[in-house]
């Protein structure tokens, strides 16, 4: 049963209240973020239907938004998603080498997830960290000035966290 907890519902109501009465659809993007974070890191159809129900809009209105924005995952992803920027300034500073190194280390290409479900690699377009290139997004935060050694350390850190949380 897909339902937000009571705490999350308080947050939902707080988000909806930011917008004028009758304009609750404006809460769609924030609610999709909340839903993705809450229900396993991706937006399954029943999750999107639930968000539509909360906002009293048609499910199609949710689908068309979820498919438009790149941050919404429409299929399952690994526990740790390495989103490596590959646009101009990062490319100038060796982003291609970082992507190749992660591919070599984890045995996955962009868009793939490791067999243990731990890591997903995704090449993305500019993340607004051009002065700190090459970089990646990991969860809510950026990891910048990447080197092979830093990538190794990040992979290790993720593995340790996963082991700790199991």
């Amino acid at each position: 049963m897909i339902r937000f907890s009571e705490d999350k519902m308080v947050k939902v109501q707080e988000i909806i209240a930011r917008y004028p009465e009758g304009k609750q659809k404006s809460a769609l993007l924030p609610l999709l973020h909340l839903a993705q974070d809450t229900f396993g890191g991706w937006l399954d159809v029943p999750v999107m239907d639930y968000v539509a129900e909360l906002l009293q809009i048609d499910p199609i209105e949710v689908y068309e938004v979820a498919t438009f924005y790149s941050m919404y995952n429409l299929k399952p992803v690994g526990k740790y998603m390495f989103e490596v920027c590959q646009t101009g300034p990062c490319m100038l500073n060796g982003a291609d080498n970082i992507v190749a190194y992660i591919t070599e280390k984890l045995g996955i290409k962009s868009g793939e997830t490791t067999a243990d479900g731990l890591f997903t690699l995704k090449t993305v377009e500019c993340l607004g960290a051009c002065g700190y290139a090459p970089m990646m997004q990991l969860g809510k935060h950026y990891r910048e000035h990447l080197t092979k050694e830093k990538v190794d350390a990040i992979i290790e850190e993720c593995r340790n966290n996963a082991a700790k949380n199991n």
Partner: protein
Amino acid sequence: MGVKLLLEKAHVEGIRTFEVYRREGGYRGVEKVFKTMSPDAVVEEVKKSGLRGRGGAGFPAGMKWSFIAKPEGVPRHLVCNADESEPGTFKDRYLMENLPHLLIEGLIISSFALGSNATYIYIRGEYAWIPDILEHAIAEAKANGFLGKNILGSGFDLEIYVQRGAGAYICGEETALIESLEGKRGNPRIKPPFPAIKGVWERPTVVNNVETLAAVVPIINMGGDEYAKIGVGKSTGTKLISACGNINKPGVYEIDMTISVEDFIYSDEYCGGIANGKRLKACIPGGSSVPILPANLLFKTAKGETRYMNYESLSDGGFATGSMMGSGGFIVLDEDQSVVRNTYTLARFYRHESCGQCSPCREGTGWMEKLLKRLLEGKGKISDIDLLWDIQRKIEGNTICPLGDAAAWPVAAAIRHFRDEFEWYVNNPVESQTRNYGLAHYADEREVIA
């Protein structure tokens, strides 16, 4: 050391907090406005300052404010555009992370001027940690009487809300941003009507960039006329430049727009020269969408005059021999870089970010990406270069929003200034797979600075 209006306090310990920001003179602008000025007087001050939109278009901010419709009984809104997504641009992030109260103060003053009682900060979704910083600053400002009901006893109410986007460059375009704020796909609207007449929820709306709204604070504190004395010509005040690429000191710098491009690149106060002792090949001076300039047109205009870091000088010569200030995203390429590869990554970016509404952009960006990829793979033909030129011409000016232009300009400028490099990929299909285009013939055309 140039004048600092925005970043002067950026390195003060604890400046993120209300207490320290206030101690350093923060919120004086709000007090001045609420105690001594009318909304119209604030608009007038911004007009006098000559402040131009810092998001990229450079439209006079005061003039934009003066367009807002004021129908009886209809709420108005200010929306802060923090959807910073133009490759090369990371200045707004720096402001929001380090000086959140400066932005909040700018928003309060601007909201008062425009009559917005509910103001929204639309921030790119990937900056996922910054909403917490902003919301904390908002809560502090509210707890101290600078936000909420009846601010400073003025009778003016204001709430500021933060909304995260979800990964779409197009949402930096004001009408796409408005659509997104309404919970829709970020498809730009046909203008007119302009947002100032019919914006979010069909209400009069002004959308301004983060840096633009932060700049309102020094304008109010020092007065529009004084602000206008800084800089040169129609490039008044200071501008944040985010410098990146192959330089020794990438980062965010505040300049007063009287510094030459050469000094900006080579002085230790700013970029500190080209990284690893290499030579300069080219530069994209205003974010990925503005025309790339070869080194020989970067320090001097085609007329042989010094080129400065301001709106007029950077665009001197038009697109034939000049570029644009744009967003201030300053991307430097050293001699080892491939302009074709760089152009390909930008073409891929624009294809990925096209919203798909307009055929010239939706189809054209994809074709440009494919042609550039083919050239890079050593499978290109000379006619591909002409086809690329033709496609970009057919995109430019034929789309609802400027994304089409933004996608076309980098390709056009790269071919215009580096056509020989494109041809080299065609003529050297094997060699091009193992090394970038040689630069020997550029060395004769520019002064190599040790």
